[in-house]
């Protein structure tokens, strides 16, 4: 078993998954269900991946929870991508300074 062949297969499969829909779907989709489904996909996927993962990503679930709340509030108030990310990281750093 050759490690480079493994890596090549991983790369080929990863790329095919990403490139096939991008290249095969060339026109705007008119089917209302599919259109609505694709509209909701990003929100659902990102929400599902965020919680509860964020709570378990940190050393203590408390700091993860605080980061989640801080991130939601910051984004709600209109902070951009970078600011929200930095706020979440800082909150964890500060919170764990007290917790751990």
């Amino acid at each position, binding site marked *: *078993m050759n490690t480079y062949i493994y890596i090549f297969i991983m*790369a080929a499969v*990863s790329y095919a*998954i990403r490139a096939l829909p*991008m290249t095969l779907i060339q026109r705007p989709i008119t089917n209302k269900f599919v259109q609505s489904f694709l509209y909701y996909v*990003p929100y*659902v996927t990102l929400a599902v991946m965020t919680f509860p993962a964020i709570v378990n*990503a940190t050393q203590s679930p408390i700091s993860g929870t605080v980061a989640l709340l801080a991130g939601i509030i910051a984004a709600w108030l209109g902070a951009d991508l970078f600011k929200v990310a930095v706020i979440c990281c800082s909150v*964890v750093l500060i919170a764990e300074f007290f917790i751990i």
Partner: protein
Amino acid sequence: MRYSLKTKSNRDIFSSGMVDGFPIGLGYFAVAFSLGIAAKIAGLTPFQSTLASLLCNASAGEYAGFTVIAASAAYIEIAIITLIANARYLLMSCALSQKINPQMPFFHRFFIAFDITDELFAINISREGFLNPLYTYGAMLTSIPLWAAGTALGNIAGNMLPLRLVSAFSVALYGMFLAVIVPPARKSKVLTGLILICFAASWAATNIPYVSSLSDGTRTIILTIVLASAAAILFPQGDNKEANQQ
């Protein structure tokens, strides 16, 4: 339509891509660092693990692949596990195909597709109107090298990064997800409700017996298909002006 860096507006878009890609790169770095450790345990050299990261750009997918390499399993097995761990990118690629200007030269699709990750997808889909490929390229430029460098360093340096920093870095990615989903939810009650239901369903799925034993990637796919279908049936796009705003 051409996307040339000779015009100022295109240069601005390219640099805003670089700016948005950088925090993603920092988050990547921390995640890739732990991935590099996993690669080392699986027996990959620093060069091999860096190559895998440059070519695959997938945390869960690469991790799953490394476990297969460690077990010296059949080649078909690594193909299947990569497919399962990355299947959500298929959905993201479908969604992103709808953000492409039909006038855009075709070859850009091959390059944009290369780096459809959770994070890059998030920032690409949240752009207004059609996607300018230069934005994506800018973000790729500042994030992919950090992903690869993180894997290399993780493989070489193992457990040297302070745990506090790893812990803090690890929420950067989720912070970015929130920055994408929260602002549109503020304008739409449907989205607010949907996101809360997603949180609850996702929490339930990690605790319900049997479902919780599935991998994160598989759970994400199942929840996405079920919840996005339900939302599409109950609140179809088009009659609902409110949900159209982005």
